[in-house]
């Protein structure tokens, strides 16, 4: 699948797309499946499925604890790819692997790409793999039509954004602010001017994440970026308020696209 074409096509029917996130094995594989079913019912546009890692430096407290808990419960790569395979067969939204580079490094770049292709994934997001370290993996990915999703951040210089933009495929993950996942982001003029800088650095669609939590947030992004990403807020609602609130939040997010 060409991810960029998929995104542009979907944008014919809605003003912004919704990418949602979940962590494999947290709270449990069964609950993951229920989350995916709800995402399917609401018709989210893309899903990132995180493989837990013992040293999740880019994750804030909520996700860091979830990574750890999933590992304590014994999540393995076999279980992870099995969940991905079942999910890609069942649901139509494209799936991205999210995780840390050591997973790819230990498996070996070739085996990692094979496992992703076999699992039906369209690509991956590895926040601790900067562009200059990823050349070999990116090359293998291209051969298998896997999209290595690059990240742009507000502290990058224009020159650095351009370097990242050159390697972009599918879309670029725009990190809305400093820090790690989990806290809220103000959707303000500073953010818009940062998005403008990203836009100049690449032609692929932009996905904005870190701290989005409602349909209203998504509405405010319409016309600015192509995709809004929601992660921590979904997990928080699942943990603190339960399934029906999770359904409500996803519906609200889904509506924020129009």
């Amino acid at each position, binding site marked *: 699948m060409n991810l960029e074409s998929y995104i542009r096509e979907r944008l014919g029917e809605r003003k912004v797309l919704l990418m949602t996130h979940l962590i494999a094995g947290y709270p449990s594989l069964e609950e993951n499946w229920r989350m995916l079913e709800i995402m399917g019912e609401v018709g989210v546009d893309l899903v990132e499925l995180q493989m837990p*890692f*013992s*040293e*999740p*430096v*880019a994750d*804030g*407290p909520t996700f*860091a*604890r979830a990574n*750890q808990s999933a*590992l304590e419960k014994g999540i*393995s*790569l076999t279980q992870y790819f099995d969940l991905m395979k079942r999910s890609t067969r069942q649901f139509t939204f494209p799936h991205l692997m999210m995780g*840390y*580079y*050591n*997973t790819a*490094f*230990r*498996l070996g770049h070739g085996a990692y790409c094979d496992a992703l292709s076999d699992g039906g994934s369209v690509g991956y997001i590895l*926040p*601790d*793999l*900067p562009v200059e*370290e990823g050349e070999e993996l990116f090359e293998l990915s291209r051969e298998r039509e896997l999209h290595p999703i690059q*990240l*742009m*951040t*507000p*502290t*990058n*210089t224009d020159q*650095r954004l351009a370097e*990242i933009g050159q390697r972009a495929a599918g879309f670029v993950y725009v*990190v809305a602010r*400093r*820090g*790690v996942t989990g806290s809220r982001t103000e959707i303000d003029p500073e953010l818009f001017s940062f998005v403008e800088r990203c836009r100049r650095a690449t032609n692929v669609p932009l996905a904005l994440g870190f701290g989005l939590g409602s349909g209203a947030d998504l509405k405010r992004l319409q016309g600015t970026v192509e995709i809004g990403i929601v992660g921590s807020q979904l997990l928080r609602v699942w943990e603190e308020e339960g399934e029906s609130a999770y359904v409500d939040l996803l519906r609200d997010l889904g509506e924020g696209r129009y």
Partner: protein
Amino acid sequence: MGALTDEIFAPERPGYFGSFGGAFVPEILRSTLDELIEVFDEARADESFWPEFLQVMQSYSCRPTPITYLENLTREIGGAQIFIKREDLNQTGAHKANNVMGQGLLVKRMGKRRVIAETGAGQHGVATATMAARFGLDCTIYMGAVDVERQRPNVFWMEQLGATVVAVEDGAATLKDAINECLRDWAYSMEDTHYALGTACGPHPFPQIVAYFQRIIGLESREQMLACPARLPDRVYACVGGGSNATGLFLGFLEDPEVELVGIEAGGLGLSSGQHAARLAGGMGVPGVAQGYKTYFFQNDEGQMQHTHSVSAGLDYIGVSPILAHWHECGRMRTESATDAEVIDALKLLMRTEGIIGALESCHGLAGGLREAATMDPEQTVLINMSGRGDKDIFTIADALDDAKWKEFLRQKVDKL
């Protein structure tokens, strides 16, 4: 400088030592690492910088630290002559001072107002807190909750020195988790905050910066050995946690092929028990990428880090300096391990025969060195890095020695509360 030293301070591929090192960090940190590289490169190109560093270390931290010939212990062991480098005599009692004071000078050049640091045993935390107090910086120390519990006295001192100590509950709640938390703090705070990483690990340029300042140990040692006993040691030993004291000592002898470099890792309850913190020794670790750099990590087949164990919190870590990984792989360094029990024995012997209270970390180097010295000729010499002193770790050491009178004292203290 020779070719091997150039590999460390002017590598062909910046940030890489052989195939180890690099900077695998979230993109948000790229700009602040670039800033640090620039300031460090400027500083070391500036002829006045190293003398300024020496001046600070001489006036604030008892440098040059002496080398002591352990005559009694040599007689007791009955092999090679044993010398130790006295890093235990530094300000705050460990080699950690070399690195933090050096990084403090870089912070001044960058004009930042706050430092953060991880700590395991608490030594690097205490050292950073003293540096922050001296240089007028705000200071936050991240420390695994498990370590906070086993190193309470160091937490007390850090707080007295004006630092905020944050107990990290994530993961194994030890050193590695404190590092993760520092990286997270830094991802928010980099504009006015420097992360003073405590060992020769982490993303480029940290291994290089820490090695640059710690090499003061090796530079002094080489000169001192040449003065008296007027010869280079046959072998030099250092304990290896993250690898900063070993890197620093070994850099002094790197270009002397006749000097064998031996790193001693924490063997815990024995390598076959799985309860240890060995990465290079015994092939316990495999290459991986975590916490911003590529090196040998103690990890499982799927790349998840394993729990480490050591009697000394300062060696209780999953990774090892990419510089040491490179020397290990290219054969310049040999890596062995010493068990908790061997370390306790070595410490007892050192105290009784020489009146020196070494840190448990350092006594790994000592235990490894004594084991081998016993098999060497009396004409041969070994130099062991006494990276820190142990008296400030009285709670841990008393525990490790299982001292009944100390326990009674604690009981009485508690009763009086």
